[in-house]
């Protein structure tokens, strides 16, 4: 019942949590992207795909407030993003774990930075370690764990601050294919339990279609939103979703949108 309720509320219809308006960004003379407009609802996963170098990671860092933007604005709730704000947490491509801290200490990091009391940290850290399936590895150091386990730890650290917005920067790109698949379904399970607004940057079309309620395709140099594809697959997303006839259709749709660009881009010489 709970899952169905969540499923019913999931998607684009809810109240927007993130509003991106006319966003543009330069690196010196190089214009990365321009005129980026999109919303993310409170319980919605928006996947962003695009060819390498299209600025999807830069866009995500702008939303997190790690990088300044040049034009337009980003609103999370009513707050204009100019620096990292509370309630937004990021999961990093290379995990971003502190190698001298144990799993527990890494998961506690975000809470400590948020000024949470010790008792709350002591209560929440084991809870989130268990949620991501790392129970028993509390005292392990990152170098003792596989990439998949390290990213579970990175996910627990982000979730522990109980954010309303999760920013995922190609989080499963650095792990092997099988682990990646496992982690995708783990993420879906966790999201059903604790839905948030999520922006998921990936270069995997399959991943974007499986996870996203909408897929935004970035194209061009400078890039802009070429198309937004609504992924009307049944909720909750599970392993069966991959077998759904609609899944293949949508994957093909995103693929053809993206590949038209990729083919052109392949034959353009880098300056």
């Amino acid at each position, binding site marked *: 019942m709970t899952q169905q309720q969540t499923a019913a509320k999931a998607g684009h219809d809810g109240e927007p949590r993130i509003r991106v308006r006319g966003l543009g960004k330069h690196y010196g003379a190089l214009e990365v992207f321009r005129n980026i407009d999109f919303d993310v609802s409170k319980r919605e996963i928006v996947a962003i795909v695009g060819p390498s170098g299209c600025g999807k990671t830069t866009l995500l860092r702008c939303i*997190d407030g790690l990088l300044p933007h040049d034009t337009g604005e980003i609103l999370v709730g009513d707050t204009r993003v100019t620096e990292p704000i509370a309630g937004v947490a990021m999961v990093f491509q290379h995990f971003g774990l502190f190698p001298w801290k144990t799993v527990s200490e890494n998961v506690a990091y975000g809470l400590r930075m948020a000024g949470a009391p010790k008792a709350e940290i002591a209560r929440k850290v084991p809870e989130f370690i268990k949620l991501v399936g790392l129970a028993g590895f509390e005292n392990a150091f990152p170098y003792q764990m596989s990439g998949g386990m390290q990213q579970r730890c990175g996910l627990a650290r982000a979730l522990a601050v109980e954010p309303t917005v999760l920013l995922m920067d190609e989080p499963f790109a650095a792990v092997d294919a099988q682990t990646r698949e496992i982690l995708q379904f783990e993420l879906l399970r966790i999201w059903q339990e604790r839905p948030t607004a999520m922006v998921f940057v990936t270069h995997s079309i399959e991943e974007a279609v499986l996870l996203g309620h909408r897929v935004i395709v970035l194209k061009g140099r400078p890039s802009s939103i070429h198309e937004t594809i609504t992924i009307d697959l049944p909720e909750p997303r599970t392993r069966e979703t991959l077998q759904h006839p609609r899944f293949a259709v949508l994957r093909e749709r995103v693929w053809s949108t993206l590949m038209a660009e990729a083919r052109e881009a392949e034959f353009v010489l880098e300056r």
Partner: protein
Amino acid sequence: MLNTTIRRHAPFWLSIAAGIAIWEIAGRSTSQAFMVPFSTTIVQLWELVQSGVFIRQFLDSAELFMTGFVLALAVGMPLGMLLARVRVLRIGVEPYIMILYATPMVALIPFILSMMGFGFAPKVLVVFLFAVFPVIYNTVEGARSIKPELIEVAQSFRSTEWALWRDVMVPYTLPYAMTGVRQAIGRALVGMIAAEFFLSSTGLGQLIMTASQNFDTAGVFASVLVIALIGVALMRAGLAIERHFARWRQ
């Protein structure tokens, strides 16, 4: 088990035994004015220790060494991290650090003497100047090699500057800084003896000078041997500390 232990350590102890044997033979077959055998050196050292002279001079040197060395760490490590964190400062200060690092500090001793005289402070300054630059240099290099992603993580979780130092900069940089600390140990020992030779004559430096002027080669060797062994022991201790701080680096 015992066998492998013996096999592993045998080359080391054989080499030490051979070194002592060569020293002993060379000492016995040359004039006592140039060279004394190992046995005479040890006897002389024992007599110096018994008379109380050696212990007093040793503690004198130790005080000088520790003061200069600890000051070098206390200044070098924070300054190194600050230079790594603040780009403008690094660009401004780095040329002077490179020049001073390359300068033979012994050449500056007459200048320090004329500025500060013969007290304890100028000698501490000499030890400090010998030791501080490898600490700064290695700390800067270490702190600069920190992955930008880790700084981003800290910023993303809204870390304060103070917390960024405590949780990220210091734990990351310590093993690198320790490499500089080990280099600094050797240089500080040189600085200590140089200060005791050229500024007010005290400590083991004085012991060596006096023995040398009296053609007491055994006395010279006894002090030098002790300094060398302490140097080795301190560097081994430094390595152990470095490994302790670096146990997270696979």
